[in-house]
């Protein structure tokens, strides 16, 4: 046993997970993974405990929570063989967060003994269902959201089951992306296998197993200590609203009661709305990912992601509610619901941690443009999220136009988009006065104008905070609401709904996307003159608004 061995093995295992993730992003085909890094890679032990998880997308924080038990249930451990590769995407069975997130998982054998699993989860561009991209808030059940796949064997002892692959690809509108992405996931898993086998060869199975125990315990101790030191004991509540459920116009309640006791935190979502009849439910593992994200962000942003992080947390998410739906509830559009849920939790946790207070933010507004591309002679799907403004923070203004909480995906380069799709970008500009006024101003939203160049293009959208803007805090004012506007400034100008699928557009139409601003913090009257003048000089606040709001 050499000095610092537990730390060394832990660090090597975490590096292995990140190496898998880097490999997946490099080799993937679809822009979703390549440019937006919507994926995760993980190593789990034979008991199913996640000991290293790498991701740039917080929605993936619980990707492997239920994976291994779900595999064992169908493929008993003793039947698994080297070279087996499992594939699955059903959120109700394997616990990924919607059908687009496809999991590739492989058992890792050392000397004929199964010691661990390597998993790679990636958002596939399209898995079938009624709309291109497979995500839509107005789906009435998961059956409309794509093909459901329980754990199946994609490779059996190294041999591809071509029939299984074909079945999956046949259900996709973009099979060329999916096929490339599956191979990228496989390459990532193979890297994981090699690294774990190398660790075993070098240190021996016992030392590796002991180090995994130690790393999980150390992460747990670390999180507990941060909870104890940073969160005041007590019970804190907050609530907010989702604009509508995707079909009916009724607002949907999201609420959390957070109880901090010593080094534990309980999140109780009993006051949240009942399960929706649409695609805006948050499946259980995504709710858990949202909880892990908020706690990590509030107490220990640099904590390792493993089972130790999960241990001090208790969650009450009643079955049949929006945060833990029963099948066949739709879940494809769960991410924006979880963005509002994260605002709610950060509000409640902020009451326990006064130096981490943040007003609610303006989440991204999503679009999918799809249709035949007459010039390039193919069917195109342009899937994009445009960021809104961050809520003002206790240490300063919210950042303008930046991805929040559960999302941190890039925009697609304009020049790439115009090369690839029959779309032209005509404006990409900060919206003045969109950040909520306050002692600290909320971040501004953005205006993006897209000109449709193809005929027969259809538009689907997903959004939040088009009716209930990001609230201000402690006297701060709310940010502006988001909106979709067709042909602004013309006789045909039309404000669109906040959720819909496949609306036909005409060649030459201009689609304007306005993203919501963040809420302000503290009274506008307390903002310094220098800060107000700087905002006016930079054009982020108009002089009229400055006079009116910052009296």
């Amino acid at each position: 046993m050499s000095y610092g061995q537990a730390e060394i093995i832990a660090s090597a295992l975490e590096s292995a997970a990140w190496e898998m993730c880097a490999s997946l992003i490099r080799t993937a085909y679809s822009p979703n993974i390549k440019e937006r890094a919507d994926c995760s890679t993980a190593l789990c032990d034979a008991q199913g405990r996640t000991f290293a998880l790498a991701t740039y997308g917080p929605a993936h924080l619980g990707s492997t929570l239920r994976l291994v038990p779900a595999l064992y249930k169908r493929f008993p451990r003793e039947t698994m063989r080297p070279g087996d590769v499992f594939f699955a995407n059903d959120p109700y069975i394997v616990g990924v967060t919607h059908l687009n997130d496809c999991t590739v998982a492989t058992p890792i054998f050392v000397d004929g003994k199964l010691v661990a699993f390597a998993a790679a989860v990636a958002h596939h561009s399209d898995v079938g269902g009624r709309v291109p991209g497979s995500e839509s808030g107005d789906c009435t059940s998961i059956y409309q959201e794509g093909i459901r796949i329980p754990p199946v064997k994609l490779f059996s002892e190294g041999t591809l089951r071509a029939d299984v692959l074909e079945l999956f690809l046949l259900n996709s509108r973009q099979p060329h992306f999916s096929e490339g992405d599956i191979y990228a996931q496989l390459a990532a898993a193979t890297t994981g296998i090699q690294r774990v086998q190398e660790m075993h060869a070098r240190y021996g199975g016992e030392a590796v197993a002991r180090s995994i125990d130690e790393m999980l315990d150390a992460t747990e101790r670390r999180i507990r200590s941060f909870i104890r030191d940073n969160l005041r004991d007590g019970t804190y509540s907050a609530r907010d609203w989702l604009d509508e459920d995707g079909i009916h116009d009724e607002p949907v309640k999201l609420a959390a009661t957070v109880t901090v006791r010593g080094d534990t935190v309980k999140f109780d979502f009993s006051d949240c709305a009942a399960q929706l009849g649409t695609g805006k439910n948050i499946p259980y593992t995504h709710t858990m990912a949202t909880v892990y994200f908020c706690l990590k962000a509030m107490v220990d942003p640099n904590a390792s992601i493993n089972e130790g992080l999960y241990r001090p947390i208790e969650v009450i998410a009643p079955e049949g509610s929006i945060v833990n739906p029963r099948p066949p509830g739709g879940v494809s559009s769960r991410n924006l619901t979880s963005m509002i849920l994260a605002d709610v939790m950060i509000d409640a946790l902020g009451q326990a941690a006064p130096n981490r207070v943040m007003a609610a933010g303006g989440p991204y507004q999503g679009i999918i443009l799809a249709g035949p591309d007459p010039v390039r002679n193919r069917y195109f799907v342009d899937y994009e999220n445009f960021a809104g403004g961050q809520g003002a923070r206790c240490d300063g203004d919210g950042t303008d136009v930046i991805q929040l909480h559960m999302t941190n995906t890039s925009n697609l380069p304009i020049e790439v988009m115009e090369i690839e799709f029959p779309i032209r970008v005509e404006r990409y500009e900060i919206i003045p006065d969109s950040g909520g006024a306050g002692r600290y101003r909320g971040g501004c939203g953005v205006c993006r104008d897209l000109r449709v160049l193809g005929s027969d293009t259809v538009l689907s959208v997903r959004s939040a905070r088009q009716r209930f803007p990001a609230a201000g805090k402690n006297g701060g004012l709310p940010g502006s609401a988001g909106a979709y506007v067709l042909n602004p400034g013309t006789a045909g100008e039309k404000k669109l709904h906040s959720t819909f699928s496949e609306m036909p557009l005409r060649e030459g139409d201009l689609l304007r996307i306005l993203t919501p601003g963040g809420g302000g913090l503290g009274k506008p009257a307390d903002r310094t003159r220098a800060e107000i003048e700087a905002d006016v000089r930079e054009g982020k606040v108009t002089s009229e608004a400055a006079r009116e709001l910052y009296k």
Partner: protein
Amino acid sequence: MKSMRIGIDVGGTFTDLFLLDEADGRAFRHKLPSTPGDPYKAPIQGLREILRAADAQPGEVKFVGLGTTVATNALLERKGAVTGLITTAGFRDLLELGRQRRPHVYDLFMRKPQVLVRRELRFEVRERIGPDGSILTALDENDVADALDRLDALGATSIAICLLHSYANPVHEDRVVEIARARCPHVSVTSSHDLIPEFREYERLSSTVVNAYLMPVMTQYLTRFSDEVSALGIPETPFVMSSGGGVANPALAAQRPIDLLLSGPSGGVSGALFQARASGYPNIITFDMGGTSTDVCLIQNGRAEITHGRVIDGLPIRSTAVDVHTVGAGGSSIAWLDAGGFLRCGPQSAGANPGPACYGAAGAKPTVTDANVVLGRLNQEYLLGGALRIDAERSHRAIEEAIAKPKGLRIHEAAAAMLAISNTNIAQAIRFVSVERGIDPSEFMLVAFGGAGPLHAADVARELKMTVLVPPGPGVLCAMGVLTKDIQLDLSQTRLVRSREASAAAEVSRILADLEQRGVEALARNQISTDGIVIERTVDARYVGQNFELPVAVGPGAIDAAMLRAIGEGFNAAHKRLYGYDQPAKEVELVTFRLQVLLPVPKPDLAKHGTHAQQALAPRAERRTFFESLGAFVSCPVYERSDLAPGMTISGPAIVEQMDTTTVVPPDFGARADEWGNLIVKANQA
């Protein structure tokens, strides 16, 4: 007769010089404090001093090369010019919007880096070019004139021009430049297509703005430096080391300061390669460990890995640079226990002030250097040849308080764990540049330099089954590296060409010919002779449908169907090496074409020392040193590097001290001095 060649490396703390007299092969090394307030002063003073030391006249100097951090520091400290931006109508915020990602996924309170052009200095002009280069909206020249007048009134001294799709058709950018030169002749101008005609607008914009921001500073600095060199009586124009591993004349360098941001590390990589190649090792991984960080770079067949895009201080920069990978592991890296009780090393650094605990500052934290002191690997009384006194007792106390006691370890055990963790971080950095790119590091030599590289090299090498090479002057290797490079010009052009289209060969020929023409013109503009130029061509390619590219070499000769097939095969092979699979049935798309123009500069000849028979080599001292493999402190001989004549060997455990570094030879290693002054440190059973 002119026979002196001088390399200079201006670092943040020290300025190093290396002088080689080609007449007789004598080498001189010199170190003096940098002068950050007046950055040209230290190198000029250093030139005077090293010429005096070599007893040489300025008239005898035939080459001066400068590696400099002036551009990097001006960027990091935000001390560039008041810069304005002119861009396409609707897009002035692009610089600020970037890729809309937050800098840290979980730390919601982390700020994005400050943008270099404030919003009121960003102006829009009506114009639009399409992705195929067609003009959709003609340039409104009144908008341009207005923008320039307002920028002038706002005090801008440098202007960045970046219009959408200018890589596909530069006509509008060119016109804006013309108007700017006529209307504001005193203002510096950078246009994006001239700097990097590549697609992906934000990265091109960001690079253009950084270039504009630094251009006035660098022009002033390099002009001043050249004038001072000339005033010293040195008849030759000095050259400047660029990030890509070549040198450029000051006029060219001042126009492209983004190519100087890695000038220092690039000198180190060149020096390491030059020393290693002399000993017959063209495949090396450089290991440069300083106070706060470690830089590693892979060099295969004498060529350093190159990257065309980096992020510096949060700003994407498209520029050709040696692909140095940096980790926060240095001698001053602080060891700490996290809240879960796990021992960690770095990335926080004690820097030079307060520095490691052994430097004597009150309340200093335990660092990697302190662990080396506690374990007897470093001198117990002084470092830097006596220039720095150290207090070993403070190292013991700092490690005891912060690590050993809370972990329940003995002090030397805690110190050994600190080194093991630090070495693991370094080994991971080396794996990142090798294993993760499909390369086996055991086939490479680990060239250790920087103050702490040779101290850790053998332990890192053991982990990766490598052999170590410690060059003669590990502390002034960057200065030496400047002497070994050719004049280099990197050019690029984005143009999407599908390799199986009938017109592909003709189109690729035309693109490469245009690039070559641009290169020759740039040399001519800067009064550089094109005699003997060497041109190397690469293309960034991908499978149709992919959204990332890999570089593929384009061999010499005419571009025809066979050449296109060869490029496709080269791409398949690169894809397979990096990612483990290829798809030969898929069509390859050529995306960005690159040309490197090299103008060879005569290389210095190192003196080859004859090998002596093994003489009696006496250690200068003995020191109690702890080795993990022995689990105990043992009495270890300490040698002086200058006592090691070529051919001499020593077996571990042993320590070799010299002014600028300490080399540790563990019990399972041996060392041999070779005829080029390199020390080869190798495992006994390798």
